[in-house]
C-alpha cells in the first residue's frame, strides 16, 4: 500500500505549488507579491515596536540583532518570478527583490530579468522612481541603463530625473560623511547603514563634476521632457525649481526675500531681519 500512496500523496501536495504557478490568475499573482511584501513590512513594524519599548542601549542592540532579513523574504518570490517573469506581478516582484535582496547573486539576477523582460514597459519608470532616493552605484547604473534602452520618451525623462536625484543624494551623503557635522556614533551608524560598497563609492565621487552634470541633466529635462507628468506637476516644473535652487539658493547666494503673514495675520518680511544672523526653518507638525 505504502508504495502506491506515497507518490500519489506527493503529487497531490505538489500540484497546488507547481501547477498553480502556471495557471494562477494575474490578480492572484499580484496578491501573492503584495502578501510577501506585507509579511516583511509586518515583521519590520513588530521590530520597531520592540525597539521603542527597549529600555536601554543594550536592550536595543539585542532587538536590532533580530532585524528581519529582507533577502529571505525576497527569495520567497523566486518561484513566482520563474514561472512567468514577463507579467506585471513579476515586474513588481523583481523591482522589489532587486531593491531589498541582501544576496548579491539574487540582486544581479533580479536586475537582469527586469531588463530582459520589462525594459520596454512603461512601468519601469516606477522602478526608477523607487530607487531615486537610495544613492548607490548599482541604482545609478540601473537608471542610466533604463534611460538608454527604453523606447518611451516619458520613461527616459523619468529615468533622467531619477539620475538627478541619485546624484544629488550621493553629493549630500558624501558631504555628510566628510563634513564632520555628525557625532562619532552618528557617523558610525550612518556608515553602517550605507554599507561598505556605497561608502567607498561615495568617497571616490568628484563633487564638482557631479554638480555640473546635474545642471546639464536638469536643463535637458527642462527642454526635452518638460511635459512628462511627475507627482502633482510635470518634470519641467520640477527641473526648473531644482535649477532655481542650484543657482539661487546655494551657499554664498543672497537669499530671496519672503513676504507673508504670521500666525496673527500680521505681514512681515524675511529682509526685516537684515543685520541679524537668521536661522530659517521650514517646519510643520502635520
Amino acid at each position, binding site marked *: 500500500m505504502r508504495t502506491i500512496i506515497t507518490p500519489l500523496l506527493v503529487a497531490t501536495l505538489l500540484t497546488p505549488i507547481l501547477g498553480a504557478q502556471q495557471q494562477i490568475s494575474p490578480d492572484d499573482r499580484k496578491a501573492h507579491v503584495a502578501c510577501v511584501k506585507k509579511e516583511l513590512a509586518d515583521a519590520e513594524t513588530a521590530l520597531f515596536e520592540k525597539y521603542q519599548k527597549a529600555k536601554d542601549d543594550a536592550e536595543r542592540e539585542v532587538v536590532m540583532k533580530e532585524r528581519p532579513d529582507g533577502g529571505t523574504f525576497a527569495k520567497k518570490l523566486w518561484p513566482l518570478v520563474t514561472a512567468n517573469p514577463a507579467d506585471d506581478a513579476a515586474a513588481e516582484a523583481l523591482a522589489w527583490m532587486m531593491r531589498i535582496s541582501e544576496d548579491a547573486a539574487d540582486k544581479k539576477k533580479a536586475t537582469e530579468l527586469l531588463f530582459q523582460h520589462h525594459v520596454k514597459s512603461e512601468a519601469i519608470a516606477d522602478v526608477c522612481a523607487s530607487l531615486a532616493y537610495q544613492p548607490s552605484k548599482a541604482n545609478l547604473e540601473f537608471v542610466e541603463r533604463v534611460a538608454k534602452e527604453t523606447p518611451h520618451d516619458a520613461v527616459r525623462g523619468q529615468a533622467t530625473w531619477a539620475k538627478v536625484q541619485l546624484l544629488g543624494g550621493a553629493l549630500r551623503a558624501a558631504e555628510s560623511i566628510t563634513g564632520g557635522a555628525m557625532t562619532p556614533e552618528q557617523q558610525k551608524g550612518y556608515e553602517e547603514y550605507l554599507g561598505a560598497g556605497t561608502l567607498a563609492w561615495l568617497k571616490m565621487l568628484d563633487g564638482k563634476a557631479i554638480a555640473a552634470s546635474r545642471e546639464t541633466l536638469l536643463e535637458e529635462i527642462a527642454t526635452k521632457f518638460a511635459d512628462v507628468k511627475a507627482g502633482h506637476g510635470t518634470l519641467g516644473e520640477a527641473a526648473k525649481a531644482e535649477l532655481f*535652487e542650484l543657482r539661487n539658493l546655494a551657499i*554664498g547666494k543672497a537669499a530671496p526675500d519672503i513676504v507673508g503673514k*504670521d*500666525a496673527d495675520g500680521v505681514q512681515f518680511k*524675511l529682509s526685516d531681519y537684515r543685520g541679524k*544672523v537668521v536661522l*530659517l526653518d521650514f517646519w*510643520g507638525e502635520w
Partner: protein
Amino acid sequence: MFPHERSLVAKLADKPFALVGVNSDPIEELPAIQKKEQITWRSFAAGPGGGEIAKAWNVRSWPTIYILDEDGVIRAKNLRDEAMEKKVEELLAAMATKKK
C-alpha cells in the same frame, strides 16, 4: 527639533540672532500649535505643504534649514543640532569681530 531650537533662542536672546519659521500646517491651526510647543519665534503661516514660499524655495523635505548671515547671504543649509548651533555662533563671532 523644538527643544534644541527653544534653548538656542533662549541662549542667544541678547545676540543679533533671529529664528524665523516657515510653517506648513493649516493656517488656522498655527496659533494653537505655537502655544502647545511653546514657540516664541515668528513664523510665516505658509499653509499646507508650505504653500508658495516652500515652492519658491524648492523645499521637499521637512525640516529644511537655511542659515543666513547679517547681510542675508546663505551660509549653510540643512545643518542639524550641534553643527547648526556651531555655525550660528561662528557667524555671530565673525560679526562681533567685524564691528571692532
